[in-house]
């Protein structure tokens, strides 16, 4: 088997089939932003600490800075651009987590927001929201994402708000 320095990958991003030719060292986070033009995914620390670049790969949240773009060949990626859905009248309906962030003022500068939204959306979708959401669960859910505006109180409020809406 040969080794490559560049590859053409095909993947599904937010339900749309995409193709890109990337150097093999390209991080998934950079491929989304530079090669596919999806700049909603933010790049903070680039070593897995801040969580800003969190996206879903085959439905599970992962750090896109800790995967190579070539590793998602044939897989399905969801970014923050894929959270809202069309209302079929030319508008968009926000995801309950996005709605809750707006309601609860859970963002200030917005840099960390895409990562929080993806993490929380996946976290809430994976659980039975008819069961009571404990503070500990919320802490666990958002604990891997850094907000340096220190808006955690409102972010946690938004998680509860969204869980309520997703019952």
């Amino acid at each position, binding site marked *: 088997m040969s080794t490559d320095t560049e590859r053409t990958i095909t993947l599904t991003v937010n339900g749309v089939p995409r193709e890109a030719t990337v150097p093999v060292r390209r991080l998934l986070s950079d491929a989304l932003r530079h090669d596919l033009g999806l700049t909603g995914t933010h790049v903070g620390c680039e070593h897995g600490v801040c969580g800003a670049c969190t996206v879903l790969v085959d439905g599970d949240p992962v750090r896109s800075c*800790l995967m190579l773009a070539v590793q998602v060949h044939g897989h399905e990626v969801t970014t923050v651009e894929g959270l809202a859905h069309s209302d079929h009248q030319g508008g968009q309906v926000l995801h309950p987590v996005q709605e809750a962030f707006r309601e609860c003022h859970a963002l200030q500068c917005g840099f960390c927001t895409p990562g929080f939204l993806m993490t929380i959306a996946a976290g809430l979708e994976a659980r039975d929201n008819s069961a009571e959401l404990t503070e500990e669960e919320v802490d666990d859910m958002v604990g891997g994402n850094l907000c340096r505006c220190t808006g955690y109180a409102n972010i946690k409020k938004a998680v509860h708000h969204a869980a309520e809406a997703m019952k």
Partner: protein
Amino acid sequence: MKPAPFRYADPGTLDEVLTVLSSEGEGAKVLAGGQSLLPLLSMRLAAPATLVDINRVPGLDTVEATGDGVTVGALVRHNALLHDDAAARVQPLLARATANVAHPAIRNRGTTVGSIAHADPSGEMTSVLALTDGSVTVATPSGVETIGWRDLFVGPLETSIHGPAVVTSAYFPALPARSGTAFAEAARRKGDYAVCGGGVVVTLDADGRVAAVRAAYISVGLTPEVHDLTDAVVGQPADSADWAAAGELARTLVDPDTDLHASADYRRLLVGVLTERTLAEAAAEALGGMA
């Protein structure tokens, strides 16, 4: 903050992986979950000439639990092991420790075996391999070998495995009868690298008295070590043993370093506190299991 250029291959069989590793030589590195390797590449602390991605190799993503122990394949993600009930029944330390590995998004991708092969002294699963007296299975072009944990860990981020080789699985022996376990860590933020942490196994005799106590710590020392704390509490009733004395003993046995995050003294203090706490928890579990 971008990896230096490298060559990449993602073979579809283990044989092909070994062939590529052999032909690429010393500069080749195996990529599994990548949650430790990718940061090292991005920070340019490592610049392998070739990455050999094993994610397409079939058969490496299974957890096998028997009465004797649990075998974890090289592509089993921390999160899969965390939620494997059969594995938790045979060796409860697996779920207890993986719950402390990083954050959910990292557990979805990172592998337990990769974390062991990475040999970070602050990694949870290296200490669990030691505490359970486990081993790894390594595939090389000349065959398959098993390496016990004592022969595996050479130093921080260093194992005794050299040349073209892939760790294909890790084996964690079952928890002995009349035993309980616990795992705890202290970290600035839950899920971050622990300032100090550790797991314990308490084994009782048929009368519910302490027969054996073992502990292994993380972020304390350069390689995983198992400390025998039995002498501090041997023969004492499990529900009223002097766990503080065992914690005291542990403090005298460890030799932590000072770094940016904590002084050696603070780490030693944490060893004492966490040991006392986890031993009481493990003993209660062992007693509960006998009732």
